[in-house]
């Protein structure tokens, strides 16, 4: 009996010891900054790409596979960016299991730029001028390395409900609406007028969405060019105060929440800050086909000039064993011709200069939005973008806290108090 007990104790301590050993061994994985050994694709082996949401690549990949029997490509689709982001971070941490080509949401690019040694430099002379400048800049490191190829962009227009405008005695014609909403002051003033005439409906969908739209015109929203966090700029505070002052114009629900979705059909939403991809959300929130009497339209205008919201990138991690093939494939996918085809399928607006002038893009109309010339409108909106906000590595984290701060005001918290909480939330991120 005694002997057994001693041996159990021995066994237990041996187990703990081996665990501790394993623990310390686990800390030192492969060096993620070192490039993997390059190999040729074996027979039956395929280049891998992971995308999220709908990139519209199915037909393109078939086309590529037919033309490149040696470099077959296999796509993995993940439902949502948030899901893929969590998975991607786990894989980056383990430095294992990453695909050869990784699709990344635009807001996440600063994280790639902050860790350039992990990613293959994709820059090449013949790609100069392919993308809108701000798209390339957001993927370029201080040393001039390009860590991602831009896929789509999110130039913003205003989507509006013509039937609600009419009810409020406002003009309903696209051009007249565009003339009405040239500045943010105009936008809010028209909103006050609208709300007086149609008090039961909301002027815009969510305070957070307007805040995001205004933020997309601030040059240094949260961080300075050297990546130091700075949330004390008067521009930022002004965005916050303006939105906080007008919470009654919106639904008071957080964007993407259940109440936000419901507000489209219940109270009704008159305007939405509208990048190309937002049309799909409006359709699904409002119902497609639209209920009787509901008529959406797109105005070729954005308050305060242009603004970009969203758009993704393709990147190649250094753990890829087929980096050249991966780069070629990503380059082909993001070429203007291919992205113009994507636009036709999904409505994701291209970020390539040439694609913006592509006849098939320019001629596109959207029947759900009263046959608005969507291609032409979004091309104009892309050309109107003058300021691209600087996104440092903490951008998306701070943005989330900023959205929380706006949301608190929606819920009735005093704006000054909510701002204080925002400041302490941001401090906790450093």
């Amino acid at each position: 009996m005694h002997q057994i007990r001693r041996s159990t104790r021995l066994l237990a301590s041996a187990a703990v010891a081996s665990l501790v050993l394993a623990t310390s061994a686990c800390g030192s994985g492969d060096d993620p900054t070192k490039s993997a050994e390059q190999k040729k694709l074996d027979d039956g082996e395929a280049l891998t790409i992971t995308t999220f949401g709908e990139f519209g690549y199915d037909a393109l990949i078939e086309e590529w596979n037919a033309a490149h029997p040696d470099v077959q490509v296999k796509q993995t689709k993940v439902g949502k960016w948030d899901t893929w982001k969590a998975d991607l971070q786990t894989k980056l941490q383990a430095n294992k299991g990453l695909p050869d080509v990784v699709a990344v949401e635009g807001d996440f690019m600063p994280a790639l730029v902050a860790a350039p040694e992990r990613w293959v430099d994709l820059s090449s002379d013949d790609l100069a001028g392919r993308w809108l400048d701000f798209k390339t800049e957001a993927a370029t490191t201080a040393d001039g390395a390009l860590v991602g190829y831009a896929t789509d962009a999110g130039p913003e227009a205003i989507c509006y409900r013509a039937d609600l405008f009419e009810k409020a005695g406002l003009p309903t014609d696209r051009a007249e609406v565009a003339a009405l909403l040239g500045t943010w002051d105009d936008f809010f003033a028209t909103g006050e007028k609208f709300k007086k005439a149609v008090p039961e409906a909301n002027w815009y969908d969510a305070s957070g969405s307007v805040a995001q739209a205004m933020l997309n015109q601030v040059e240094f929203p949260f961080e300075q060019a050297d990546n130091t966090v700075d949330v004390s700029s008067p521009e930022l505070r002004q965005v916050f105060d303006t939105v906080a002052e007008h919470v009654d114009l919106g639904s008071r629900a957080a964007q993407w929440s259940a109440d936000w979705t419901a507000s489209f059909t219940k109270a009704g939403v008159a305007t939405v800050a509208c990048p190309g991809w937002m049309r799909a959300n409006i359709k699904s929130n409002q119902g497609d086909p639209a209920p009787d009497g509901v008529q959406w339209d797109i105005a070729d205008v954005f308050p305060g000039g242009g603004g970009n919201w969203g758009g993704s990138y393709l990147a190649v991690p250094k753990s890829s064993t087929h980096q050249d093939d991966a780069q070629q494939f990503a380059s082909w996918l993001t070429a203007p011709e291919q992205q113009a085809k994507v636009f036709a399928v999904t409505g994701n607006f291209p970020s390539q200069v040439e694609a913006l002038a592509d006849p098939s893009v320019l001629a596109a109309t959207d029947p759900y939005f009263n046959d608005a010339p969507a291609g032409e409108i979004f091309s104009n909106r892309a050309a109107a973008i003058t300021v691209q906000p600087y996104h440092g590595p903490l951008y998306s984290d701070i943005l989330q806290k900023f959205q929380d701060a706006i949301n608190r005001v929606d819920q009735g918290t005093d704006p000054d108090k909510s701002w204080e909480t925002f400041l302490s939330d941001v401090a906790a991120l450093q």
Partner: protein
Amino acid sequence: MTQQVPDSRAGEVTATSPASGSPTPAGRPHRTEPSASDDAARRRLLRRQRRSRWDLKLSPYLYVSPFFILFALVGLFPLLYTGFLAVHDWNRAYYVRGDFVGLDNFVWVLKDPVFRTSLVNTFSIFLMSSVPQVLLAVSIAGLLDTRLRGRTFWRMSVLLPFVVAPAAAVLIFGSLFADQSGVVNGFLRELGLDGIRWHVDRWWSHLAIAGMVNWRWTGYNALIFLAAMQAVPRDLYEAAALDGAGRVRQFLSITLPLIRPTMVFVIVTSTIGGLQVFTEPRLFDDTPSREGGADHQFMTTTLYVYVKGIEDQFYGRASAAAWILFLIIVAIAVLNFTLTRLLTRRSA
């Protein structure tokens, strides 16, 4: 899969046992026996005896070993590694461990107002869920223990919520408790009352979340109680009834004291579970941040750990918070255990 582990191990041990194990004294004289076939038979017997002795000694350990091996891999190892990470910095850009920083992470977490908010939320949700849950479960079990028509049906139906995946349950409750478009608020407005801001007001949100937890776990606990109650000898009730004790009196004086061990078990497990509520608050917040409300009004501590680690990529701080939570849970489980024992012993 797990069954193969002890088998192969057992084979290994028996193969090497003659070398390490002491030869039986009884075996020796037989070697001088003339008949070779006899000798072989005896040796076989001997081997079998040895094997069966080893079997007796080792097998129990091997049978329980799958659990402990698994526990070491997914329980003990993460626990220790978390402790290791908690005293290190974390490089967010490259996802690697940084320098040793001592207790800095613990200090940071304890000073973080959000962490303190999360602790208060955790305890509030825990009290709103575990206490009514155990009381309700005991009463339901008491009712199910009587002669009901269609007993199996009733017993099955209390377990039904447990079978529903928590994520699905939250979706249902989410649309019930939506602030503007929810069914519950619609009903309240029908009655002429104001709607309750389930996602905004701190204590109401806790109540909604505790409701989901209770809905899921009450039936499960009731079944455990029921199993214990069925083991109570029936003649005790008959004797009590002869003495003129009513049903309530029987329940309090016979049933409760006799299911004490089960009581302790359920209270301890529901304490541990109640302090680790995660899915419900995570999904109850239907904004994209999913951090337990804009003001963290219903962020629990496990959610805090997840957000700090997986989302914000501060593994050191998240690990420190996890360890603090671990210590709190251990302390409370021990306290609960002693209290329950004391209380039920007195009534026994």
